[in-house]
């Protein structure tokens, strides 16, 4: 009498619901680099034109921890995969990619909003930036989790 373990049932999703990880990474990298580029360019111009006066260090102290961890991870992974000539066979569910993409876009939009709303706000720009940490902090955690999965995952299709 042979005892056979029950086989794990595996149902593959149709191809149209999957998306190659390389494409996901490049799209997200494009979104992050263009969004962060716009933000940093705006801040550089504002800093050079003394918009923030003596508070310029506080402004950069706000933006760097907001952008650089995620940007650093993206650029590192892109650089690592650029050294690998083999195409990764990993695929990602489109729904998750969509979620990660819109989380990233919303996060970048909120940062841009904090900067571009300043002329219309009665408060000090630095106070506005400090206040935005209330919602950007938790949001950054969500974005980092989503991007971490997408950029560090090595599962094969």
């Amino acid at each position, binding site marked *: 009498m042979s005892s056979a373990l029950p086989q794990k049932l595996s149902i593959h999703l149709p191809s149209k619901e999957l998306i190659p990880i390389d494409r996901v990474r490049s799209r997200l990298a494009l979104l992050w680099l263009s969004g962060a580029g716009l933000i940093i360019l*705006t801040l550089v*111009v*504002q800093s050079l*034109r*003394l*918009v*923030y*006066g*003596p*508070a310029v260090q506080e402004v950069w102290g706000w933006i760097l921890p907001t952008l650089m961890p995620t940007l650093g991870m993206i650029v590192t992974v892109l650089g690592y995969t650029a050294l690998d000539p083999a195409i990764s066979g990993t695929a990602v569910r489109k729904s998750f990619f969509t979620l990660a993409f819109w989380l990233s876009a919303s996060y970048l939009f909120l940062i841009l909003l904090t900067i*571009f709303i*300043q*002329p*219309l*706000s*009665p408060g*000090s*720009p*630095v106070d506005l930036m400090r206040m935005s940490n209330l919602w950007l902090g938790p949001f950054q955690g969500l974005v980092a989790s989503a991007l971490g999965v997408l950029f560090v995952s090595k599962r094969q299709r």
Partner: protein
Amino acid sequence: MKRFALRLIGPLCALTFLLSACCLGQESVHIDGLCLFDSDHFDESLYVFPPDKQALNMFQEMLAKSGKDLHVVVKAANVPEVAAAENGNERLLLYNQFVLDRFQKEGRQDWRLSMLIAHQIGHHASNHSLTLEPRMRVEIELEADRFGGYLLYQLGATLGNIEGLEEFFQNTHQSAAFPDAHARFKAAIEGWHDGRAEQGGGQGFDPGDDNIPKFPSWPPPQASANMDIPRDLLLKNISRPLVMDAATRLLSALDQAGYGERSFYAVPGGFALVSRIEHIYPDGRPKEGDERWPLTTQPPRIFSLSSYIRALLTSDPGFYRVIAFVVTSRPLVQSGAFTKYSSPRDWVWAGANRLPTTIAFLGYTNEVSCTALIYEFQQVSRNADAILHVPGSLTGRTHLERSSLLGALNK
């Protein structure tokens, strides 16, 4: 016989009185108004007598010490002590012979009586009308007290002598027509300091009027710009100007130039009048409408896309101005002390709304000058504190012209 003699005493007394009155030149007089130091009423009929030589000399000496060419008629009278009186164009100084004899015997060291006499001389020296209604009377009595203090200094009184008169002032009869005893005492002390200052010994004296706050920082902080306001501009066609006249003119000019709120402060030898802080263009013109009167530094206004982009990418510095007019008989020295934006901003809230009489009735003599101190602040960015510009980018005259104050003073 004894009864007969007693019957004769009455008529004899009456006869003696009539004869002595005729001999001494007693005459009943009418006066338009008088001052008895703490009252302007004399209920009895007023009789005057020719003065004795000794008393006349003493009064002439005191009148000469007043530094003015006074035409005052001195007479003995049935007044309680000393009185100033006015009868048409004639100005009278009336004294009680018995009181003055005692004063002479004591070597004129009774500073209380000296103050009484000096006060009455003060009325004549200041050409006061002694027929004023009670409300106006208060003002001239204070001025006479101040002059009294001044004259006492000329007569050799020390500050201690004047301070010793506090109880005397406290014990004077209080009435609606006469000022508060404490104010009178302070006015006398200020007058004494005026006398001392005139001889170069009063630098740094603080008027110390309790009814008005002292200027927050004295000497004043170094201003961005300043301008001496010409006397002719401030006091047009006023023969014997008072500090009050200068204050009235400045208030009128501030009103015409749109400065609603302002504050008075006491400064040594005069007063300071401070305007509310205003938001200005870099060229000194005031901003329009409510934007002119900020309590905090203001964000730029957004009218269009271009103004939005300009506000986003440029620092758009804000310029603010406080004007302080300082009217004083002392030389004005500005200290180099740094002034924070919030300090001059709050000046307008902390002062008095009008000048107290002790300062208002100071004479605007040749030693008095009016200087406009302009404090110009710039906020380089919305995150920076507004800082005082020393020296400022504009001259004092430019500031006053563009704020329309000079135009208002010229009218």
